[in-house]
């Protein structure tokens, strides 16, 4: 569950808050599109929800934990329950694809045998297993995006956040990804996908969070 009450976000060194008085309530196991023009605050909201920043004011609860007062240890444990597909993929270029995807499982202390099995399973499903021992820097944009998706999915997160996860994918791969999101939702995962792709939104109608100038559009959370 994600619950925001009058939340503002003001990054250090920035005069004005980039998000204002944001109030949201997303029950566990639901899907939301995150929509809005460039600069509306989509990435800032995702940053907040991935615990990349603490709110400047307001109350924010994620998976039952109040973020405002949470300890570093509590935030660390929460981060392990959140999967994120960043727009810029954020892969570690010096590591292999395998090591990048295995990282969430290694941080949970899983055995190498299990990790190997699960990593190859998800890489094969996303059609990048052949690159398991390559560095991500030599892969195409689409392949890197699939590796980032694999890393976000492998830990079976309770919340999955994705920033333009289909912009480098072919149409068939994008459809496949949406069906995967649906499977995760059926298993109880909350999924929020930021996109500009109106075709994709039309293809999978769902409630939307509409942002404009760092605030929820008056017609936000439209069905």
């Amino acid at each position: 569950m994600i619950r925001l009450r009058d939340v503002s976000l003001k990054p250090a060194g920035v005069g004005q808050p980039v998000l204002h008085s944001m109030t949201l309530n997303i029950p566990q196991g639901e899907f939301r599109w995150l929509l809005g023009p460039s600069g509306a605050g989509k990435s800032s909201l995702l940053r907040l929800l991935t615990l990349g920043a603490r709110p400047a004011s307001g109350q924010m609860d994620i998976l039952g934990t109040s973020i405002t007062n949470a300890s570093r240890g509590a935030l660390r444990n929460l981060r392990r329950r959140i999967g994120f597909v960043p727009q810029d993929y954020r892969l570690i270029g010096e590591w292999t694809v395998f090591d990048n995807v295995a990282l969430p499982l290694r941080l949970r202390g899983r055995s190498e045998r299990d990790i190997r099995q699960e990593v190859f399973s998800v890489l094969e499903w996303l059609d990048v297993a052949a690159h398991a021992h390559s560095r991500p820097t030599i892969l195409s944009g689409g392949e890197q995006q699939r590796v980032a998706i694999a890393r976000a999915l492998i830990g079976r997160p309770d919340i999955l956040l994705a920033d333009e996860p289909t912009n480098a994918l072919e149409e068939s791969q994008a459809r496949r990804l949406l069906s995967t999101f649906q499977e995760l939702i059926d298993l109880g995962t909350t999924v929020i996908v930021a996109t500009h792709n109106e075709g994709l939104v039309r293809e999978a109608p769902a409630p939307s969070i509409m942002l404009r100038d760092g605030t929820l559009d008056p017609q936000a959370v439209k069905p």
Partner: protein
Amino acid sequence: MSRRVSPGLRSGSLPLLVALMTLLAGLALAGLTGIQALAEGWSRAAHSAATIEIPTDIPNASDRTNALIQALKAMNGVTNIQKLSTDKVQELLSPWLGQPVGSHKGLPGLSLPEVLIVAHTPGTDLTTTVHDTLPEAVLQEDLQWGQRLERLGTSLTGCAWLAVTLIAAIAALSIGMTVRRSVAAQKRAVEIVHALGAADLTISSHIAGRAALLSFLGGIAGLVLLTPLTTSLATTLSPFAHQSALPTAFPTTLDGWWTTLRILPSSLLKELGALPFIAACLGWLTAQGVVLVWLRRLP
């Protein structure tokens, strides 16, 4: 396959820096050991020796000197009395009196005194015996000079420790700067790992482990660089080692090298042997501190 959970340390010149610091620390420790030995010797001598000068131009000088020697020998606490020969006294005074001309001792018109060196247990007071038996004799307890030398020795030991401490501080600073540069260069990777839920200690321990390993290897390299110097020092000391069958030339075999090194005090050898481990601990602690402080900037 390696189990990667955090970016490592980009070592740069860390092993070389630590090797040079180990070399300096080894030299400082060798100096410290020498100074400590000297200070101890001075301290022992300061509390257990006295010099008695007896003018030879007094009546019955020889008989009265012998009487004084007998009286001193009879004292409790006197362990040894050495009467210096005229040649020895001449040699000791030669910086002030010059070398003797022909068979003449001292300067023309100036007779050399008899000199007695009396070794005694600390606290033995020779004053009464000397003044009662031979009032013309001048008694000089070495204690005063010894205490001054002891104070000098203590000061030098303090300076040597200060040097060792400074070297350790500079080493810690160098390691800290290397680690900080490395973390800054891998900022993005550290942020990714942090965002995926890595504990601060997981990240810092990974980097600190690498820093410790590189510091240890640097310490070993420093010892290797130090070896010719310590061997040379041991070779120089070997004539004073009071052991038979010690090589006095620079050793060319491993056995000879080890035999030569054993001339050095075992405490020094142990301290030198501990340097790579100390470097590793210093590297680990410094890296942990630097990384943990750096990570505090992340939410």
